């Protein structure tokens, strides 16, 4: 298949790049680069280290024991092919080519023993270190890519908040009320014309309850204003509340004769059903 395509290409494409006198179709088979796909493969490598790794992996050799001669040769063939199609990319590849050639030449020479421990230094050591680090990062990159990613593999939940529906109301605490009352009393003391009475709030509460009960009802029998379930204390407070309401002229209490039913009526004329149309 590859050869067929290559042959066809050769037929219609007279300026196919040539390497060492041979057309691209004759590239080493282990590179597996169909000539028509060369540009795609050029882009497929992320750089000289990536290409080197590919060549090492393809040859299935130990990265710690790189056969420099064949690797360098393959690499140069590739760079040559690349140089002819994509000059821009070539600089880094050429730098690597120079490094490979340098390592290869040093391998041919006897290795000088290291000064400290006498162990001979392998000229490939630095290259291997870089290759291993790059390979580690390359694998890590693909592992990171496999992690589920927000907006790609899952979505954040963010439900609409109906902000505009509920108006934010001021919060009032008991402390606020205390402070407000305190400042009022201060003013009252300064003006000294308003006497602040001390009294039980529970009486006030019953007063309001009775007023609400009388609302819109006209005369109500006195006994009906008392809730016997409230207990003795409740009854006493209710009674005090009615007296206070009468004193403040908020209710009218009537009794036609002694021992007759006592009626209580709101002093508010609008509460008199008889007066309402």
């Amino acid at each position, binding site marked *: 298949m590859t050869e067929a395509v290559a042959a066809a290409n050769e037929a219609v494409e007279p300026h196919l790049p040539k390497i060492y006198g041979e057309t691209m179709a004759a590239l080493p088979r282990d590179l597996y680069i169909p000539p028509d796909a060369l540009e795609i493969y050029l882009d497929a490598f992320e750089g000289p280290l990536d290409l080197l790794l590919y060549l090492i992996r393809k040859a299935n050799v130990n990265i710690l024991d790189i056969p420099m001669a064949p690797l360098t040769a393959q690499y140069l063939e590739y760079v040559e092919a690349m140089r002819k199609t994509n000059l821009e990319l070539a600089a880094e590849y050429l730098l690597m080519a120079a490094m490979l050639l340098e390592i290869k030449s040093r391998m041919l020479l006897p290795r000088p023993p290291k000064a400290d421990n006498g162990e001979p230094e392998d000229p490939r050591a630095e290259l291997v270190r870089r290759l291993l680090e790059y390979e580690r990062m390359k694998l890590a990159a693909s592992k990171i890519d496999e992690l589920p990613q927000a907006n790609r593999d899952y*979505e*954040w*939940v*963010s*439900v*609409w*908040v*109906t*902000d505009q*529906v*509920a108006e*934010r*109301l*001021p*919060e*009032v*605490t*008991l*402390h*606020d*009320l*205390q*402070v*407000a*009352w*305190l*400042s*009022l*009393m*201060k*003013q*009252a*003391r300064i*003006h000294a014309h*308003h006497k*602040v009475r*001390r009294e*039980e*709030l*529970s009486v*006030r*509460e019953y*007063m*309001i309850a009775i*007023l*609400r009960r*009388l*609302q819109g009802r006209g005369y109500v029998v006195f006994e009906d204003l008392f809730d016997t379930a409230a207990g003795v204390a409740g009854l006493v407070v209710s009674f005090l509340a009615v007296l206070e309401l009468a004193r403040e*002229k*908020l209710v009218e209490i009537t009794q036609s004769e002694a021992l007759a039913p006592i009626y209580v009526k*709101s*002093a*508010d*004329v*609008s*509460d008199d059903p008889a007066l309402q149309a």
Partner: protein
Amino acid sequence: MIQLYKPEDFKIVLETALLVANEPMPLAELKKLFDQEFDDDTWRTLLDDLRRDWANRGVELVQLATGWRFQTRPEYQGFLDRLKNERPPRYSRAALETLAIIAYRQPVSRGDIEDIRGVAVSPNVLKTLEARGWIDVVGHRDAPGRPALYATTKKFLDDLGLRSLSELPPLTEIERVMDLAEQTKQINEDAAPQEQPAEAAEQA
């Protein structure tokens, strides 16, 4: 991708899509979710079913002009507001004092409030408190002009966490605090008079 078999499976996908949607989802859009084609009645049943599932939660499924979406129930707004850093709005001093007078002296007319405060009460203050549902008119005084009498409501107690009016801070204690403040003031004129009572009141 997981396989959908039961109606429940479809509902879960629908719920998920609606929970992450950035805007109301028209039915036509939701239909893209499934390979299977359902008629509008089936869709309606599915959506109604989902809405019922959320009936007692802080979020509800609603149908708007532009489609379906999940949104918070206004009753839960108060809690969500606590997560915002902005400070809650506050009532004016006039509103707070008016509220305090109504709470401690109910039933009172506007005239009573003005007597105690020594200044006119803006109708807006009473309207605000009435709109909040904290005060209402419980009657009218049998006097010239038949002034309305204001009292606090059950909602006022609920909102302030009180079971009855008698749980309001007793006035006697407030007065004691004030006496203390005045004594302190006499002793040390430099003391900040606003600070002291507030602190003492908190301890009370």
